[in-house]
């Protein structure tokens, strides 16, 4: 009887051990592996979605590059200023205004310096600012038209109005004089010259009167 009891007890113990270690243990490992598989499948689907979006992303990049090609972001400093002067002269002539002075100022003098883009998760794109002080003279509507047009040339130029006043304080003439802060922007490429605009002691005055 003792042997039979031992055998019965052993049978029950084996069944319990099988449940506890083989079944439950196996279920745990299988569940863990299924979870890992689910994560892999999710990553695989995400990767497939990413790959599926590739044509759209490429099209978007092409569109953005085309959009950025309409402005001269990568020109050298001299070329940038030269192009802007030509455009400014054309704008002034078109709107019957005059640009008596354009003065290039140093970045330190105007507080302008290399700016960076706050581009969220991506690394910022550094832009170098070339500050100019521009005076525009003309009638009210013409001056406003020139202010509007100066920032829409091929050269990215941030235009800020410092002052706008009647040319003659006695009011005899309807002509206005506008003093503008203009910052020409160019992209800093790795092979480009130093990032911060080098301070320059000399000012360059350019007269672009309409003929």
């Amino acid at each position, binding site marked *: 009887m003792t*042997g*039979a009891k031992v*055998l*019965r007890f*052993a*049978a*029950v113990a*084996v*069944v319990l*051990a*099988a449940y506890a270690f*083989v*079944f439950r*243990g*196996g*279920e745990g490992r*299988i569940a863990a*592996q*299924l979870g*890992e*598989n689910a994560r*892999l499948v999710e990553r*695989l689907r995400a*990767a497939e979605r*990413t*790959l599926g979006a*590739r044509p759209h*992303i*490429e099209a*978007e*990049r092409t569109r*953005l*590059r085309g959009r*950025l090609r309409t*402005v001269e*972001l990568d020109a050298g400093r001299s070329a940038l200023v030269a192009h802007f002067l030509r455009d400014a002269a054309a704008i002034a002539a078109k709107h019957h205004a005059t640009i008596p002075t354009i003065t290039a100022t140093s970045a330190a003098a105007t507080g302008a310096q290399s700016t960076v*883009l*706050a*581009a*969220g*998760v991506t690394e*910022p*794109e550094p832009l170098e600012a070339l500050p100019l002080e521009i005076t525009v003279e003309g009638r009210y509507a013409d001056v*406003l038209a020139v*202010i*509007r047009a100066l*920032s*829409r040339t091929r050269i*990215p130029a941030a*235009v*800020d*109005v*410092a*002052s*706008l*006043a009647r040319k003659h304080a*006695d*009011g005899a003439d309807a002509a206005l004089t506008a003093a503008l802060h203009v910052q020409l*922007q160019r*992209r800093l490429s790795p092979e480009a010259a130093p990032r911060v605009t080098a301070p320059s002691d000399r000012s360059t005055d350019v007269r672009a009167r309409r003929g």
Partner: protein
Amino acid sequence: MRRINYLPSWSERHLGIALPPVLAAELRAPLVAFTGSLALCGVLWGVQATRLHGVERDGVAYAAQLAATQLDVARVRALEHDVVRLRALAERVETIRRSGALHANEIAALGNRLPANAWLTSLHADRGALALEGHGARLSAVGTTITALAALPAYRAARLVAIHEDPQRSGVTYALSLEPR
């Protein structure tokens, strides 16, 4: 009561030899149960091992597929990164290109807000604030001007700086300051 099995054993019936029982009768049922439990344990282990092997095989297959796509995914990620950079740059350029129109429209809005009997002589920007000087036909015109300019959405308040009677022209000259929002 003691039960006696009169049935001849298998060896006695077939071989004519009555072999002594290897196992006591009372142990047979427990032994069968024990053997059954061992078999159950074995079957259970086999089933679980097969299932585990199956899911591990699936996992290896998924990992291989994932590894095969990683290079292409990295290229697409680089493209996305480039697009984000270009988009930020394009937005920045667009903001720059709008700056002239923004200021011109601001000045135009100022001029349009002025009442008929008030004029603007000059405008100076100073750290975001706008200093205005002008001429009014009457003192009340300056009040109307302040009310009209204070209603501009870009400015928090229009502050009177000074008003003087204009000896040369009839009316008054005024100086105002517009504080940005």
